[in-house]
């Protein structure tokens, strides 16, 4: 079942066009990986899905992006409500310089999800457990989140993202700043999370895309070259460019 349906999305940074007619169907409760060389527009597309491009003043998005029949690329859309439903994990771990507890409790607080302190404690605990961080931090929830190791920080960011029970989580190269062990932990986590949420992940690591995703889209120079089941993209792509990129001949 399709969760997000993008049709003919064009993105411009000032006069420079960054995305050309991208159309893509993102299936519910699956992991969709977006791959492609640097500057190909995969992150730009990802940021269209929770309207993070709004922050960039010169950025203009055209086309239609629908999530459950809700038009995302509309001026009338309440981005606060959208971002409650579509969480995001960034390339570099960016926990708030506050305590671990406050980091996870921030989303539920501003969206009024928890009614009481007990409920909040519960949300923080569940989120940290889902992010596989609970056992490591349960005794030091009042320590500053930025004092954790890189991998722990990224899992804290994932816990923060899932604390508001989003329907979709966007991940923008979540493992590029992490060592292989931390990367493996995050990948396991993605596998667990997809039971409940739809995940879109941008990655530079082909093997990561192959390991975690069910669908893969290959971007090149702002165009979606090929999109399909991960197995097919990696084993038997239709397009020559995809074949070349996957086998490491360019990019």
């Amino acid at each position: 079942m399709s969760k997000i349906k993008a049709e003919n999305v064009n993105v411009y940074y000032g006069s420079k066009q960054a995305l050309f007619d991208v159309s893509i169907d993102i299936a519910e409760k699956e992991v969709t990986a977006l791959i492609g060389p640097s500057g190909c527009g995969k992150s730009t597309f990802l940021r269209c899905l929770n309207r993070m491009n709004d922050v960039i003043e010169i950025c203009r998005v055209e086309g239609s992006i629908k999530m459950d029949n809700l038009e995302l690329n509309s001026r009338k859309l309440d981005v606060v409500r959208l971002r409650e439903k579509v969480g995001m994990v960034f390339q570099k771990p960016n926990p708030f310089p506050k305590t671990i507890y406050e980091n996870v409790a921030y989303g539920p607080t501003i969206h009024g999800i928890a009614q009481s302190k007990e409920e909040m404690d519960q949300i923080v605990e569940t989120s940290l457990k889902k992010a596989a961080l609970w056992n490591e931090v349960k005794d030091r929830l009042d320590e500053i989140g930025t004092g954790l190791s890189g991998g722990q920080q990224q899992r804290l960011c994932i816990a923060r993202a899932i604390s508001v029970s989003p329907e979709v989580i966007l991940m923008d190269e979540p493992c590029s700043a992490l060592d292989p062990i931390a990367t493996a932990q995050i990948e396991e986590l993605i596998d667990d999370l997809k039971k409940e949420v739809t995940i879109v992940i941008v990655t530079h690591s082909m093997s990561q895309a192959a390991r975690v995703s069910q669908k893969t889209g290959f971007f090149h120079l702002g165009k979606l070259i090929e999109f399909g089941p991960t197995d097919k993209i990696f084993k038997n792509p239709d397009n020559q460019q995809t074949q070349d990129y996957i086998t490491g001949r360019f990019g």
Partner: protein
Amino acid sequence: MNNYKKNLLKKRYNAERRFQWYGKIAIGLALTFLAVFMFQIFSKGYSAFQKTWIVTEVHYDKELLLIDAESPSKDDLENADYYDVAYKAMTSLDPGLPEEEDRQLIQMVSYKYETEVKDLLLKNPDFLGKIVPIKLTASDDVDQVHKGNYPRDIPEKNRRVNDYQLQIYDMLNERGDILSEFNISFFTSPDSREAELAGIASSFMGTVFSILVCLAFSFPIAVLAAIYLEEFAPKNKFTDFIEVNINNLAAVPSIVFGLLGLGILLAVFNLPRSTPLVGGITLSLMTLPTIIIAARASLKAVPPSIREAALAMGASNMQTTMHHTVPLSMPGTLSGTIIGLAQALGETAPLILIGMVAFVNTIPGTPVDPAASLPVQIYIWSESAERGFVEKVSACIMVLLAFLILMNLAAQIVRHKFEKKWS
């Protein structure tokens, strides 16, 4: 390695060595100037922290005090006539002196000596009818003689202290009746025309009130302006224009702000002249751009990743700013504020224009009482010829410097204490 390469390498090392030397020389020069300046101030000013007293005996004679009551009340003591008692206390130093020459003795103590005689009795009512020793503030001239600032070997007519007075001084000094003690009244007294009585209490309080008023006006306005400009305002020609103007405002000579204060605050709004309220508002005009620039710089220094994190969690712009960006920028903003205030603290020109240069011999209790300020006090005293004021100028500079150092220290502490680590 061929010769050309060797020479090149040698040149590079030499250039680096030379550059380091230039740096060392520059620092050395700066330190030398600072040392000379400090030495000047301290060597001239330290004696202002010592006060000279003349000890004599006073007889609280009920008849001379014109007290009739058997057991006089506080009021009786308050209203008694101390002129004769005080006069006798001084003239008793040399009973042989003819009456018409008595001024020579009276001039050796401050003109307030009668009040000092009165205060001693009011403090110790049981001294009534007794002969007790009393400390009287020595006059500016005796004070300077005692501190060794007046040469004694020049002709008498060129001296402010005549031979007779020197003779009395020597006699008292030999008896140990000239005391030199820490000058508390320098900190507790308001300004005075007499150097031996002048203190910085009124200008100090004036400065404190001015700075508080300045803080109260400039901080909220500047921080709100900075937050709006940095986080909310659209980036267009108009905001660029505002930014350029704020930067220009920071470079406007302070006397111009004084004229503005004079023309608007005093002439249009009719605020009370010579008060820290007007002074503080005028100074806040000067401090505003400094704080805005510092606040904007520290808002800019907050990593965009923190903003993105908050926005991606569904925080509104306002929440992102108030929950994350502003708290993270506070250390920089606060230390910028303190530095702005420290600048305002040393300002003289605008305060002179709005009338804070007036001679104020009361200690202000509120920001709407007339007051001077420390830098203006320095200016006022520096125009006085008496040697006593010369040392007071230096002492006042020391107090001002101490105030400045304290504020800069506060800025450092604020910065270190509230600085948080972000990744």
